[in-house]
């Protein structure tokens, strides 16, 4: 079974994000990058499928040179091969372009299932898997909490969480794309022999020309979404504790505040 896992390197979730002086992006100095947590669930699921049904896990990621480290981390927990879509012209790609490049690279390798996270925790667009399905002409299920492969390896049953929290069971034929939600599994920690072996595994580097794109089709130029300006959300105000002896009185104040200040009722 050929399993492809798309991952993204994102700033660590604890990063204190700062906007650069002209508002054109974030300050990247001092940022620690990690594998997007949702992608870790996808990877874990991929490795489990491999352990159960045999085959190979290929991790693919689009990103600058530093993304190699993220791919290496995935190789340490059981992925077999890495593909790095790495070209300066890819910088600034939106979800649409990212999916386009990924689709091109994936279409050149054998695959039975493509796994990825339900969203990247940096921009939270949650779009790449859908575009990817479109480009590769595959069915997909997103926000998957549970995944079951049929014994003939021809289809998967995925349990997904709907917008209202309701659960749906969806069966689709393979090959297909699965976007993982966080309860899908418990991602493993790399063993030390795994880390050591990962250092020797090959990561294939693919550039603009390797994938037959022109520079206009990718990066900011090819993107449909243009970011005009970055700004930080306003600082959250400290919580308020309503003091008082009489519950009715306290409730009245609360209702008043919810209506007039928070404007939510």
């Amino acid at each position, binding site marked *: 079974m050929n399993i492809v896992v798309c991952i993204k390197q994102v700033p660590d*979730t*604890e*990063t204190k994000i700062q906007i650069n002086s002209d508002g054109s992006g974030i300050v990247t100095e001092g940022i*620690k990058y*990690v594998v997007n947590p949702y992608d870790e669930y996808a990877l874990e699921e991929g490795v489990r499928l491999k352990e159960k049904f045999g085959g190979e896990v290929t991790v693919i990621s689009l990103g600058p040179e530093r993304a190699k480290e993220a791919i290496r981390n995935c190789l340490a927990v059981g992925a077999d091969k890495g593909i790095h879509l790495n070209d300066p012209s890819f910088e600034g790609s939106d979800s649409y372009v990212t999916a386009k490049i990924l689709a091109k690279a994936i279409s050149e390798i054998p695959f039975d299932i493509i796994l990825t996270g339900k969203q990247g925790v940096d921009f939270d667009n949650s779009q790449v898997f859908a575009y990817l399905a479109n480009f590769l002409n595959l069915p997909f299920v997103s926000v998957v909490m549970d995944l079951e492969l049929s014994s003939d390896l021809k289809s998967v049953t995925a349990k997904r969480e709907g917008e209202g929290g309701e659960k749906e069971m969806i069966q689709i034929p393979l090959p297909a794309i699965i976007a993982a939600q966080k309860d899908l599994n418990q*991602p493993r920690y790399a063993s*030390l*022999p*795994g880390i050591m072996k990962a250092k020797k595994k090959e990561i294939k580097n693919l550039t603009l020309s390797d994938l037959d794109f022109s520079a206009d089709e990718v990066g900011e130029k090819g993107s449909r979404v243009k970011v005009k300006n970055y700004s930080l959300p306003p600082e959250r105000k400290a919580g308020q504790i309503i003091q008082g002896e009489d519950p009715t009185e306290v409730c009245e104040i609360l209702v008043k505040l919810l209506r007039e200040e928070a404007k939510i009722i």
Partner: protein
Amino acid sequence: MDVTREIFWNVGNVALIVYILSAIVVFILVYGFYKRVKLWRVGKEEKRGDFIWERVKSVLLFGFGHKKTLNETYPGISHFILFWGFVILFLGTLIIFLQEDVFSPIFNLFFLHGNFYLWFSLILDFSGALAIIGVLLALYRRYVIKPDRLDNIFDDFFSLILILLVLVTGFLTEGARIAATRPDFERWSFFGWHIALLFNPSWIEVASLLVWHKIFWWVHLGLAFLLIGYLGYSKLLHIFSSSLSLFFRSFEPKGKLKPILDIENQESFGVSKVEEFSWRQLLDADACTRCGRCQDICPAYLSEKPLSPKKLIQDLKTNLLLSSKSLKKENPEEKRPHLVGQSISEDELWSCTTCFACQETCPVFVEHLQKVIDLRRYLVLMEAKFPQELTPMFKNLETNYNPWAFGFATRADWTKGLEVKSLSEDNDVEILFWVGCSGSFDDRSKKVSKALVKILRKANINFGILGNEEKCCGEPARRIGNEYLGQILIQQNIEVLKNYGVKKILFTCPHGYNTFKNEYPQFGGEFEVFHHTDFILDLIQKGRLKIEKKINGDLTYHDSCYLGRYNDIYDSPREILKHISDGKIKEMERKREKSFCCGAGGGRMWMEENLGKRINQLRVMEAEKTDAKTIASACPYCLTMLSDGIKEKGLEEKLETKDIAELVASLL
């Protein structure tokens, strides 16, 4: 009449038979011992050949002198008199042998007579009597008092009874001989003489007495030979194995784990099979006498977790014995239980708080801790198997260099408003304050960091911190078994410290202190380190810190394992308390070397405590008994655990816990 006795009196010319039999039993004993030595030697190399004189001293002091064994009165004394009784009886037998077979025939020299004989008889008689009392005390304790820490197997019973019978038949033989011959000087054989009185001529004739003597003599000989042969195959082997353990004890600092050297180029990590332990670690399996002292003091065991250090060592022994076949070349495929998972469960390994109480108390220097860590290393590094709470902890350490999910760039946020300088601004400082992860991120411990800053400023100490360049000291990862992560952090810290030319470092956290003091040198990081308790006391004594006010109310002091047992800092914190307190310092029942862990060491701080009782609550309840108002402590883990314990037990009104630095700072 000469004052002496004939050695083979009444039994005829049996010397040759006796010596042939002796040779056989000694051979059996030596063979049993040799087989054990071979078994230990399947272990890996470990150097323990240095400090020869210190090693001999250990055997004299802790073996012959029973120094640790006597820490407990009843079992200590019963073992002491049994041991010394037997040593003297053995020497006596040796003297008889030398007289009979060396000095008489070769040098024609006869010394076992006259006054020497009288004293000889007296001393031997008393030794025999003492040994009997020792055995009886041991039997009474084992089978009547039945302390929880002793498990009784047949070997225990058989060994004690055998020893008793050897001693009793010895006295009976002597008594019968004296009764039959009745020389007056044998009054010196005090006990033998009184037993002889029992064989009164009014009911037993001399002729049948001679027969009885012969019977006693042979039975005594037979039992003694059985005992000697049995030595090499029973718990009694500990006479040798425990002595070896004393001889080959560690002279390394207590708080130092063996590193995995050249970790990048190793193929396997930690221990999953007995033969991956060192020979010294395997020797422990036989050195352990199952006395149970370690179990009696183990916080994991006492809080009803699956771990008992005694059982751990015994389970290792069972595995070693079961593995012995497959360890032989002819039988490599012989099935044997897995060391981790079957012989020793994962829960046992994760229950250990690495408090060191077991090792501190063990009379024969069994080394439990390195074993626990070696087995954990296998689980973490090879199998990536550990309580799932630890996955985020490891990942936090990797990305943010602290065990919690705080961004590394916020490490110095606690200094806001204090203007503590970091070395990147100015590295011309007297001492570096190593804040540590707790001191930087944990709300409760941040107060301790601030208190220390206040103290240092009052004392005019020019200090700095590393700020965001400080990373976890690596201790928790290492104690959990993640040696790789631990070493990465250690190396990164050493590099930064060397860049700034740091020489002196001050800690509030005993874990950081211990690892810097005892483990960083393994990786090339040599610094002069101080714990704040020592440091503050020094400031007070030198008059650099003037304290005019006093704390009201009684205090009790909780010893941190890594400060006390690991680094022998027991007195400085107590001295400080004496300086600053108005009320009494009321000690808890378990203190100093025997102090009870707070439950957070060995990475337990980051693991759920789902099994048994909560260790911190047990400790808080002990503190409550002192009626003190404040538990003073000197470790951020202890502070967290005790504060939690107080809350969980609803004792906030009665009891509070404060770091010593906080107490001192509150008076400035």
